[in-house]
């Protein structure tokens, strides 16, 4: 199990490299890591067969929780805001989980989509929150220290990277834990899991909350990084994108989603720059190519043999 040290090395490299990276890339990476974290949650859920088309619900919740905390309750500490975002989403996930885990496959996907769209509708209607314009967040502080904007972004980047890779480590541990492997077993044979004496519902609920929390933390990070939030965070296309990146990255390894998101953000950013009129098409073809040639996702490029069980 050398993944954890490897991740640690990666984190050190990323943090060490921070001063060397041009600022636009720092920001791009920050967003990528934040979203990567969300995708990581999606992947964990996918391994248990829960494909959510409404993860933007928790993504948006996290972002708005952070935004509200910052604007209306004067919490500007980045770390607190992230915890707030994660916490709120975790709670919501726990509550909704009782309903959600009763559904599977397309019904689960559609129900989560519906819930996310309801949140979107509510946000759009709430003029106090700026409706579709959303609102800005004040620059974040770190444990009482108020950095200048540039440094601030580097710090947020550091936070995002740490959060993302930190969670990757935790979740790596999770997917190799009994609960983690059982969640995989649920994907293919729920009834047998029940007949082994383990509650499918409980495991799924757990997994669902994990996904929600990751999404919340990611949302909060994006809110802090972008300094602005609006209901689009909760729109269904956002969820769609998350699922797609998840599938494109592959569910074989906790590092896959992070890597996949970074690449996706880069591809999109350059597609937008070099073909402003047809960037969607570029992405579309990229996706098709990936699905066609890398059925197991990007990760299959790196892992030597197709994964058997959880032993990636």
């Amino acid at each position, binding site marked *: 199990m050398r993944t954890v040290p490897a991740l640690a090395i990666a984190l050190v490299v990323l943090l060490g490299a921070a001063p060397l990276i041009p600022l636009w890339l720092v920001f791009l990476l920050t967003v990528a890591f934040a979203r990567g974290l969300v995708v990581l949650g999606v992947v964990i859920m996918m391994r248990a067969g829960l494909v959510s088309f409404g993860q933007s619900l928790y993504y948006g919740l996290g972002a708005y929780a952070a935004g509200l905390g910052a604007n209306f309750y004067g919490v500007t500490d980045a770390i607190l805001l992230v915890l707030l975002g994660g916490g709120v989403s975790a709670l919501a996930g726990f509550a909704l989980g009782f309903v959600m885990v009763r559904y599977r496959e397309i019904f689960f996907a559609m129900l989560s989509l519906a819930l996310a769209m309801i949140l979107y509708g509510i946000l759009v209607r709430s003029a106090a929150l700026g409706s579709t314009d959303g609102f800005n967040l004040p620059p974040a502080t770190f444990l009482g220290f108020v950095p200048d904007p540039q440094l601030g972004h580097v710090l947020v980047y550091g936070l995002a990277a740490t959060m993302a890779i930190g969670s990757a480590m935790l979740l790596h541990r999770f997917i190799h834990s009994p609960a983690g492997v059982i969640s995989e077993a649920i994907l293919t044979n729920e009834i047998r899991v029940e007949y082994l004496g383990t509650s499918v519902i409980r495991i799924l609920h757990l997994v669902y909350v994990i996904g929600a929390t990751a999404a919340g933390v990611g949302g909060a990070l994006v809110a802090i990084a972008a*300094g602005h939030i609006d209901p689009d965070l909760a729109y269904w296309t956002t969820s769609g994108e998350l699922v797609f990146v998840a599938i494109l990255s592959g569910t074989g390894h906790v590092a896959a989603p992070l890597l996949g998101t970074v690449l996706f953000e880069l591809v999109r950013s350059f597609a937008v720059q070099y073909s402003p009129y047809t960037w969607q098409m570029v992405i579309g073809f990229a996706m098709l190519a990936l699905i066609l040639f890398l059925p197991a996702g990007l990760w299959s490029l790196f892992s030597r043999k197709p994964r058997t069980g959880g032993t990636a």
Partner: protein
Amino acid sequence: MKGSTMAMLRGVGVSIAAVCLAVVPQATIAQQSGTFKLGVVTFLSGAAAGPFGVPARNAAELTIEALNGGKLPSPYANKGINGLTVEMVIIDEAGGTTKQVTEYRNLVERQRVDAVIGYISSGDCLAIAPLADELKALTIFFDCGTPRIFEDRSYQYLFRTGPHATMDNVAAARYILARNPNIKTIAGINQNYAWGQDSWNDFKLSMEVLKGDAKVVTEQFPKLLAGQYGAEISALLTQKPDVIHTSLWGGDVEAFTLQGRARGVFEGRTVVMTAGEPAMFRMATQIPAGTVIGARGPHGVFAPDNELNRWFRAAYSERYGTPPVYPSYKIVMAILGLKLAAEKAAAGKPDKPTTEAIAAAFPGISYDTPSGRIDMKLGKGHQAIQDMAYGVFRFEAAKGEPQLADAVRYPAECVNPPEGVKSEDWIKGGFKGAKC
């Protein structure tokens, strides 16, 4: 397990490689001193592309070429911006605010543009605004309408050469009351997002102040790009209001017109389209006569008959086969403003003025554009105000072209709040300091 470690490391390797890939082109985009690099952000895809984004893009293209060729009428005749050739970098505004923030940073930090002109969506404007000062990047909003930008705080590097949306609706209220003082009932159909909600809110408030006894019978909020207004139209028809206010734009206003016309919504009442002008040439035969139409400023058909305008209309129509609409005018206003400020800052020296210098020279300038005079009056000289005009639609079958009759021009001070007053408070407070 071993495989996974290798995989991990290879993964990291690839991401680093990717990062390098990303950095390399930036090195190649070294900044040539001979040119003035201008980032232009408007909608190139999505529903806002047709009515706003592309007309603006076209106008920018046209103007910048003319600018570089020194073909603009005075006072803008000298080449480029202070003699520097203007190089345009265009970005699609579609994709949401987070993406726009990323792209804005890329423009400034990766592409090293000297200035950014753009943003139609108010959400994008709000998201970008703080970055302008943070990155010390000269940024000019040309279209987005929300008054919140400079009312919430003030900026050093951020300017908006387009007036904000308040005046559209204040003027709309004044105009319809002037035409028909005894209006009893009003109704609104506006898109269910910030623009629609704010527009309706301003209009409703103005009506309350100007004519207290006019009552609101129904306020419809179809969702953005709904395209189908069956239910809303039925609701409007049952309420039979004297006036219907709508800030629908682009495909929505066109769809609403088609469906409403077929069902007689326009009959026996006045419909005000605050953003109807871009539609009026495409739908010349479809918009019912008597519809009150605005252009979010004295643009298009409202534009004064000055040399700039004559040049612009002619050049634009000749090149793109259709007369320019207000987004086209508004982006020209932004480009000309930038040119003036930059040249003022350069003070006759040939080299490129610093961003700081331009930002210092910009506030408070007052200049002529194809759509008349602009004063950078609000927001400490960063926010433009401009006259506002409305007219009544009529299709000249003889000439085969649409016209706006009984056009009334409202001076800027009449429909814009004075410096330091929030639009909403200003309206509620009974338009204190309005010079009409």
